[in-house]
């Protein structure tokens, strides 16, 4: 087993476990921190694929900005614990252990089902020229991506800023207190 594969398994394991804890951790603050760890794991996978730019963006945007904002949001609102659904009915409480186990297993089952489907697809033989020229795309340098962004992809790049403006406006107007007007 070569080191890259070993590194991949370690990083993938970390991000999977972290993602599972996001769903199952009863404290929402911890769930937010687990999510940050999961993002770091994904950044590691990008690094292994020689996509340095994506790894950097992943850390800056997802770990740096999104996780921080989510933690801020949690701390500013008075939410300490997540209530996982309503109280189970009596006959379920009899098998409370079973119920708890199910609650932990369900996200695993869904994720495994989805992962199985996608893995099944990815091993199919339909892939086109990408198979023949993987490095050209994967090894695209930061400079190369920058040039592409401001030449071929300039237009969608600029429209993405409008998307941000719309999201910002929508968030502010929905979260604003009425008294302030």
């Amino acid at each position: 087993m070569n080191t890259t594969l070993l590194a991949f398994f370690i990083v993938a394991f970390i991000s999977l476990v972290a993602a599972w804890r996001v769903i199952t951790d009863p404290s929402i603050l911890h769930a937010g921190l687990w999510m940050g760890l999961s993002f770091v794991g994904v950044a590691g996978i990008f690094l292994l694929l020689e996509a340095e730019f994506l790894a950097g963006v992943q850390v800056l945007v997802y770990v740096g900005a999104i996780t921080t904002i989510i933690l801020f949001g949690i701390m500013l609102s008075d939410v300490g614990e997540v209530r996982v659904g309503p109280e189970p009915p009596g006959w379920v409480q009899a098998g409370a252990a079973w119920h708890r186990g199910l609650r932990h297993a369900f996200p695993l089952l869904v994720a495994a089902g989805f992962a199985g489907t996608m893995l099944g697809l990815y091993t199919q033989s339909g892939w086109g020229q990408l198979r023949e020229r993987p490095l050209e795309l994967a090894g695209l340098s930061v400079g190369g991506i920058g040039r592409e962004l401001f030449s071929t992809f300039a237009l969608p790049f600029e429209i993405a800023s409008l998307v941000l403006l719309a999201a910002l406006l929508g968030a502010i107007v929905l979260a604003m207190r009425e008294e302030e007007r």
Partner: protein
Amino acid sequence: MATSLLPLLPQLLLVLFALAVLLYDLGNEDRPGLGSLAMLGPLAALLGLGIVAGHPGEYWGRMLKVDSFSLFFQLLTYAGTFLVILLSRDYVERQPIHRGEFYTLILLAGVGMSVMASSAELLMIYVGLELMSLSSYALVGMIKRQDQSIEAALKYYLMGAVTSAILLFGISLLFGITGTTYLPDIASALALTKDIQGNLLLIAAVVFVLAGFGFKVSLVPLHMWTPDVYQGAPTPITAFLAVGSKAAAFAGFIRLLATGLPAAVSLWQPLLALVAVVTMTYGNMTALAQTNMKRMMGYSSIAQAGYILTGLVVFTPDSLAATLYYLLAYLFMNIGVFACLIWVANQQESEEIAAFRGLGQRAPFYAVSLAIFFLSLVGIPPTGGFMGKFYLFFAAVQSHYVWLAVVMVINSVISLAYYYGVVRQMWLEPCLPAAPGAAAGGTSRWSMPAARASTSTPPAAASSTPEKAQSWPEPTKPASLALGVAVVISLLLVLLLGLYPQPFFEWVGKAALLG
């Protein structure tokens, strides 16, 4: 000239007006003429479109495509945006809505729709879709005092985010198979692929991408959001979702299937045929049981998506042209219905079908107009809806989809029942007195949510309402003029499309070639 700003002129003008509205609204005062400024946006874009029409081609590294198809859908978008702002003018005076942000988001959503229509590049179509979607999510939740509105926004947002992810998965698979996101290149790569039927990867890609667009046009397995969102959203936004969002999503849909995936027609054609039949039948059957007008229009819009989809299933130049014609007529008949609905809701402070009782005596103009829009939705001459449906029907029969055409006719007959239910309320039921204070135009911006609070919001919200009444100014005018104008415009175009279809036929025929 490859990176000239000229072909972007309509979109740029719309963005400019969106920002102008936003800046003009800064501060606490109530700005006069805000609605008029917002309405100038789509009008300016229409003018810009006239200039751009003379410069067909592809620009900005093939990201922007100016052809008759994109011009058609851009025209639809700008006309729709204009009419929706016209509908909003009265509405935002009576509801606790932040007008500046409301208009800005409508204009930005319009930009997103026009971007979706004017590109053959999946990346651009996706970014346009997101711009449209994010603006719509916020617009749906704009009446923050109403739980229904917030609930609708949350539902729409969560389901929309998931389907967006599915769409992206589909796009990434298509990119993996063909090595490009440019639709004509995807088509030529797929044309070389042997064994399309057995390519599981391609099947998954097609299903994922169809799911992404199917959500936006509310096809049946992905329709769950439609009734709740239609009912909870501010009424002009309901109209916007019904005409703007749907038309733009169909534009992306048609471009994807006709330009990108014609080689995989054997994959998506049977799937979409099934979906179309189920969508029509489900929408019409469920609409029969509704008592709320907006909810009924939600189910009606599901059924209409089914009719429109038949044009894609048949997949001939004629049937695509019929789809475009139907979308054109659909824009005006739906805006008309929602204009009448807003007018009635202003009078009666209710959006139930029962609020239409005796409208024939109280306001014959609106009653007759509404009846004509309904005739058009059912597909009865002399209306645009009839011409569109007839054209769809004809195209289906010509290419041996007789069974689909028959299902469409049966469904139209079913739909007659619930539209007739409203017409019966208008003429055959005794007149209802107008709600106190409403007809006089003295309604404060808060009185409507207060009246509704008894049914939809908890008592706490209702009791806190009177103190807030001071913070919102009284409406400056009773203003149903804007609604009347919207009804007249819609009426004229629905009748024009029904009585004088020839030039429009030629126009959509050219646009449907996607050249």
